[in-house]
């Protein structure tokens, strides 16, 4: 492995740690731990296994064909087929972006005491500036290094000495003793946040931007496994901390204020500010990725010139897509929509739309004409088949759960 690939691998892992953990993971982990202690760890473990496979597939696809997923699916199955996944992805991107912006605004609210709505426009401008002024790699590297702050959850979880027996028991799915609707809604939310539809579509465009070729297939496997694995460790730790700090006090997370003190038991002096910093950084990193992802998908759908490394003059439509997305979605926060309710709703929608975005993806991964010997093998396809069934079940149960679980 040469130097460039080693750096890519290291960066990919760091990005996984920083970029995987976003507002959806934070919200669903805090809720899961606070209301059901370790009982929902299985949902996170299941989601992590599936997302590792999906990310590996999308990176492999990009390395072998040098094409990003939306691009290839649009090309291969035609506009009429792609239209539904494309519209669905656009809606999900928009909602996730609004949730991430809401998360940054709430983090600033924690520190300043000013209402989140006040921060909506400044945060939108900041997020936009990151994209407008920097090139792709700088963005990835700077936010992912700061993203290491999220390891604070892991340190806190270790300090609390979680009971290992209970942790292991939580890895096996079990039926809830109370509030079944809420239990399943959070389970669906965890899956929706871990298997974020934007994640694998974004990852493949990033690989194309980094000019991966078939020799990156191995590096990609490492990034997918270690990056997503470490990323999920943070969500795991967040569940553990919420279970050991919030649950014994009888605090359930129906509002971000109720989660904000979860690190103060482990770090009495800087736990609060660390929580705000983690929330802000994780959401900023994810917000940048989601807005880019939206622009990639749109530009590739219509065949526009795209690339974060280009000057905005060279790909005006691409740049104006993320510009529009950022400012429009910040309006939701500006109009005072509760950031946590928005996040929980968004995660349920993410789970609901999974079949629409996963089916074309899994179909194209089996195209031997495109991928040749790198097409999915039986292991990947078994996981894919399982994911397909799971995603259809999720789509069917999600909407009633949103009604029953109170959303």
């Amino acid at each position: 492995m040469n130097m460039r690939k080693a750096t890519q691998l290291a960066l990919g892992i760091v990005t996984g740690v920083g970029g995987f953990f976003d507002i959806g993971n934070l919200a669903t982990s805090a809720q899961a731990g606070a209301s059901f202690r370790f009982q929902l760890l299985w949902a996170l473990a299941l989601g992590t296994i599936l997302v590792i496979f999906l990310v590996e597939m999308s990176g492999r696809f990009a390395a072998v064909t040098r094409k990003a997923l939306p691009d290839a699916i649009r090309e291969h199955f035609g506009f009429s087929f792609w239209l539904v996944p494309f519209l669905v992805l656009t809606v999900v991107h928009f909602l996730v972006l609004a949730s991430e912006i809401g998360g940054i605004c709430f983090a600033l609210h924690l520190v300043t005491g000013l209402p989140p709505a006040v921060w909506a426009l400044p945060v939108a401008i900041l997020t936009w500036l990151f994209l407008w002024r920097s090139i792709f790699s700088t963005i990835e590297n700077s936010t992912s290094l700061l993203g290491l702050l999220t390891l604070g959850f892991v340190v806190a979880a270790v300090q609390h000495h979680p009971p290992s027996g209970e942790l292991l028991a939580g890895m096996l799915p079990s039926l809830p003793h109370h509030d079944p609707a809420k239990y399943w809604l959070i389970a669906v939310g965890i899956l929706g946040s871990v298997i974020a539809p934007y994640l694998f579509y974004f990852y493949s465009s990033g690989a194309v931007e980094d000019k991966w070729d078939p020799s990156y297939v191995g590096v990609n496997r490492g990034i997918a496994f270690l990056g997503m694995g470490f990323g999920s460790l943070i969500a795991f730790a967040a569940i553990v901390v919420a279970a050991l700090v919030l649950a014994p006090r009888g605090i359930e997370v129906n509002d971000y204020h109720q989660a904000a003190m979860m690190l103060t038991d482990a770090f009495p002096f800087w736990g609060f500010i660390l929580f705000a910093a983690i929330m802000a950084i994780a959401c900023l990193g994810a917000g940048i990725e989601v807005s880019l992802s939206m622009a990639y998908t749109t530009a590739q759908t219509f065949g526009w010139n795209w690339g974060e490394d280009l000057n905005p003059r060279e790909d005006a439509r691409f740049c104006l897509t993320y510009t529009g997305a950022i400012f429009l979605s910040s309006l939701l926060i500006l109009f005072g929509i509760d950031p946590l309710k928005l996040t929980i709703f968004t995660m349920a929608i993410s789970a609901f739309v999974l079949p629409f975005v996963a089916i074309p993806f899994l179909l194209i991964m089996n195209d031997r004409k495109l991928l040749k010997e790198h097409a999915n093998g039986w292991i990947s396809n078994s996981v894919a088949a399982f994911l397909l069934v799971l995603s259809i079940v999720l789509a069917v149960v999600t909407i009633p759960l949103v009604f029953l679980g109170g959303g």
Partner: protein
Amino acid sequence: MKRLDLVRDILDTQVTDREETKMGRVDGLVLELREGQPPRVVAIEMGFVVLVRRLHPRLGDWFLRLRRRVKVRKQACYSVPWSRVLDVTPFCVTLDVEAAETPAFDWECWLRDHIVAHLPGVAK
């Protein structure tokens, strides 16, 4: 001889100009029917109107009516004769044109000159 499937390999494929600037997709294909001979591809078509017409003809009409009010593109449908096609690969159709001078780039240029140029931090 290279074997190509019109729908699988050409329709919807990325189109680039000779500098490899991405300029759109093959939204439609025009065939010429000839007496006693196999049909022949004469042109590729690019344009949003071609695309929506594929979803439903009425969407195309509606879009053309909308275009009477907001008109940035010189032509709603940019038709490129097959003779300008330089190369066809499974992933790309390369045209012997300059993207910025075609109707496919009218929106791009308009947005660049009217919006992007006025935003801060754009190198001239």
